[in-house]
């Protein structure tokens, strides 16, 4: 297990739809608005500049009246194959990298999704925010478990 694996979530799926449709649904703002938010939640596509170096920003109203903001900048786009983007989810988590890899599989589409959690700067920033406090009890339970 490398230390990068520790920081990466990988999800693989095969969608029962042709590659072109998957690509469109994932990349076109009118589609994104329909699926990005949790069930029933309306999201607003504030910005969607689908080009390398281009920014995207989606907002969603939260029950407390504030907005949940997702935003990032595309770092790599290979049509029908690959999308890499930075992503901040405020106020939850910042500085992750998303990699979306698509491959045609007959009439289906193989889909690989990596979420790479950040490194040095992020850990420091999170430390400042005291965000680890919330996980403390989970770790205590884990420690208790593995120490048995």
């Amino acid at each position: 297990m490398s230390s990068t694996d520790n920081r990466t979530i990988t999800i693989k799926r095969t969608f029962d739809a042709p590659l072109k449709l998957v690509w469109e649904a994932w990349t076109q703002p009118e589609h994104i608005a329909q699926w990005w938010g949790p069930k029933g939640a309306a999201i607003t596509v504030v910005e969607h500049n689908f080009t390398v170096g281009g920014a995207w920003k989606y907002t969603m109203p939260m029950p407390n009246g504030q907005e949940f903001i997702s935003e990032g900048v595309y770092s790599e786009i290979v049509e029908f194959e690959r999308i890499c983007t930075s992503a901040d989810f405020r106020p939850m988590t910042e500085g992750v990298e998303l990699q979306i890899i698509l491959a045609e599989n007959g009439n289906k589409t193989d889909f690989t999704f990596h979420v790479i959690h950040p490194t040095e700067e992020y850990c420091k920033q999170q430390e400042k925010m005291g965000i680890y406090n919330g996980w403390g009890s989970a770790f205590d339970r884990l420690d208790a478990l593995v120490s048995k």
Partner: protein
Amino acid sequence: MRRDVFQAIADPVRRDIIGILAQEALTVNAVAEKFDISRPAVSKHIRILNECGVISISKKGRERYCHIVPKNLLPVSVWVEQYRKLWEDKLDSFETYLMNLQTKHKDNE
């Protein structure tokens, strides 16, 4: 300064050291030889990793061997895994939408 697994992985050299020690236990000197940075700098990282509890150091004769302590690296995976559910949900939502889209396309054909 904070001494936990997150401090341990906050530095790229320390992440490399963890990767190397995950393969085999090595002496401090052997670890230092794998890096371009100075020996004292590597020693300092090893000391921090030890204080963070992700490695342990044992003496064999005059050599000091560094071993990985895998269970103390676990919190990082757990922390990252908290987010998996969220992404799974998002991809579920995407897939559902995609299937609706697919159905509409077929109806139009």
